[in-house]
């Protein structure tokens, strides 16, 4: 059994140590806000925080995640009122919405690091996250709104 700490809760799972964290979060623990998009770190749909930094959960093994604090979209804010979640609604960002938990997690890590990011810093931080609906204009606007730089 492997013990993972996710969103402040302990979970015991019986999985091979090399299993990608993504599949354990999604399919074993049913925290389905973390999405599978590519499995090779190209799309960012599976972005979570590990010890506060953004990480692609498809590229992290369960063994490597043990002993670290993992946060998923479900645990980003206790009442789902993270400034980014509020801004995402205000700017009506999502279209299909599938990539959006990953986008929000990526942006949350950015704002933690740089509370007032410049446009260039936003693009640098976010260009690893694909949005096939191409809601990029609003993603950027919502980040600036949340940062108070809009």
């Amino acid at each position: 059994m492997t013990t993972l700490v996710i969103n402040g809760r302990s979970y015991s799972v019986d999985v091979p140590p090399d299993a990608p964290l993504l599949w354990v979060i999604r399919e074993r623990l049913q925290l389905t806000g973390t999405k599978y998009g590519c499995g090779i770190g190209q799309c960012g749909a599976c972005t979570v925080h590990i010890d506060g930094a953004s990480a692609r959960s498809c590229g992290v093994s369960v063994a490597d995640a043990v002993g670290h604090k993992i946060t998923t979209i479900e645990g980003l804010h206790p009442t789902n009122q993270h400034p980014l979640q509020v801004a995402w609604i205000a700017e009506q960002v999502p279209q299909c919405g599938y990539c959006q938990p990953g986008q929000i997690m990526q942006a949350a890590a950015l704002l933690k690091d740089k509370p007032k990011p410049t446009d260039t810093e936003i693009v640098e931080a976010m260009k690893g996250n694909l949005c096939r609906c191409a809601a990029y204009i609003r993603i950027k606007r919502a980040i600036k709104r949340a940062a108070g730089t809009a």
Partner: protein
Amino acid sequence: VSLARGWSRREFVAAAGAAGLTLGFAPPAARSARAAAAFVPNAWLTITPDGTVTVHLAKAEMGQGIGTALAQIVAEELEADWKDIRVDFPTNDPKYGRMFTSGSLSVTQSFDVLSRAGAAARIMLIDAAARDWKADPVDCIAERGVVRHVPTGRSIAYGDLVARVPITKKLSPEELKAITLKKPREYKLIGERLPRLDIPEQVTGRTTYGIDVFLPGMAYAKVAYPPTRAGGTHTAVDDTAARRVKGYLKTVATDDLVAVVAESYEAAVQARDALRITWDRGPYANVTTASIVQEYERKARQKVDDVWMKTGDPGAGMAQAVRTHTATYTTDFVDQAPLEPMNCVARYDNGGYDLFTGTQSQARAVQDLSKRLGVEPAKIRIHQQYLGGAFGRRLEWDVLFEAAVIARDAGRPIKLIRSREEDFARGFPRSVTLQVLKAGLDGNQTIVGWEHTIVGAWHGAGFVDDKGRTVSAFVGSDHAYGIPNQIVRPIRGEHGVPGGAYRSVGPGYTNFAVETFLDELASLSKIDPLHMRLSLLGGQSRLANVIKVAAARAGWGTPLPPNVGRGLASVKFALVKVPPTWLSAVVQARVDPASGKVTVDKITCAVDCGIVVNPDGVRAQVEGALLFGLSTALKERVTITNGAFDQKNFEDYPLLRMDEVPEVDVQIVESAEHPSGVGEPPVTVIAPALSNAIFAATGARVRNLPFLPERVLKALRDKA
């Protein structure tokens, strides 16, 4: 963690008589207790005694915000209070008509039906209140979810009516048809920038897409796919090694497929990979991109009799030309690549199939699965989920079929999730196309003849005419310009690879060719491409209007630095006989002459889609579709070698990212015309506008989509 999490709620709602998922706050128990007294005036809405109005959506939600827009249409005529509105996605049922979502048709084709559904319910509620009050219905009005008797001021909320008063009025089909609907100036909800109902769940990760469904006792399945895209079959299967994988449950081998069922996703992958299968690669094992293009070139030169559109006398027109111009345009395979990979959860029970997924194609899927699985259509129940993107890919039901076949043999519900690599390998990309355009010009530079030849493998799940031709594959060649003596010849080019619908279908390439070719003619005639278009439109049409708006906002004609240019393109978009959407865009682009790299700095777009149901919804769709078109035009390409696609994941099939997003200016033109769709039209103008911008910047013409740097470089060399 309970495996039943996703299921119990669904079973509850199903038991309450409204299968599907409900966006709402009322606990399921409370709702089901009240459901016996619910008012169900027609297929499209239900009002419960708590006053909740649930609009039943026969359309897929794949990012268009369609649920909110359709609910606005119902609520407008119903005179509902917007805060009482919820939506759900019912399981397939003939009462919803032909269930499909494509062609930018949802609002335009639902508008009248849903307006009348809401109005009919309002009339029935007013009638019930009037009877209860022994008043004349003409003295009663409905407003924000309340019926009011004007002379006395008495009032009753819809929910209370449903709870306490018998609602007995019936409307005949004639009466339904005769209802006078509101005029645009009377609208209270239509035209309002109402926030989308589904966004709060999306930003917390609670939205349930197909991939997020769990059933009790569910196992995982993985299919072993043949090495070629089409026609490959297994001739022998050895599962000795697979059986040794921890968690292995079963091998399913039928004429249709080979799959493994296991306790977990990882175990299913491992066991599937351990299968030893002998494949017959099938009849399309030698297909390559080059062989397809060569075949298309040969076909384009053939004399063909099939004429889709003809005006005047094309032969005589061309004969009176003093000069002609011919150009050939090609487009590569492109993959829809929705970010949610194809998936389906399936349960076989008592001769019936419960399929949990997000699809654009319930009607066709049920029809085909019923035939192939040998059961009545009613035995196939598609439990519709949210779609993590679709773009035409989810018009195909291949994964539903696979899941159903596996579930039938597995003895347990199964979840089938494709990997991204499998999704690319089993794609239904838009076919390679080759188009030849020829125009004749007379001594006054007037176009007097026009020939358009289109070669491609038409997509499945398209709109087919009475001659069995997939019209949606070559529509768009019937452009709006006043050109005499036109002929359009569609030639079907078979290559064995299944053709798919890709957001904007035919016009995605026909409009590329038409609008680029017009620009070439303008250049040959030394006429400004803007003025040429306006003169061909007689200057006054809805299309001319959006062209003028876009051009003015883009600063058309103002000077630009070297290697920077503006290109214009427009579209009249209607895949079938519905009111078209009129759209025009100006793309401003920079070309690096050393590398051939193209950078788009700005897109300026004007759109006339008639009555706008939700302005922010329209804007979001137009913004996204323009950028989708930019992704297609700049970089998307699938190639095929020895019968298999070469691209495996987003590493070699790159999509537009945030660092490539230009400034986007969208202007929505006010109109009181019937509403038309906006999900696809913007896609169709980007490739031609960009080709025209590259020409304006450099004098080089790129006619091969996508405009990869090496193709732009070649065009620059060809010019020199």
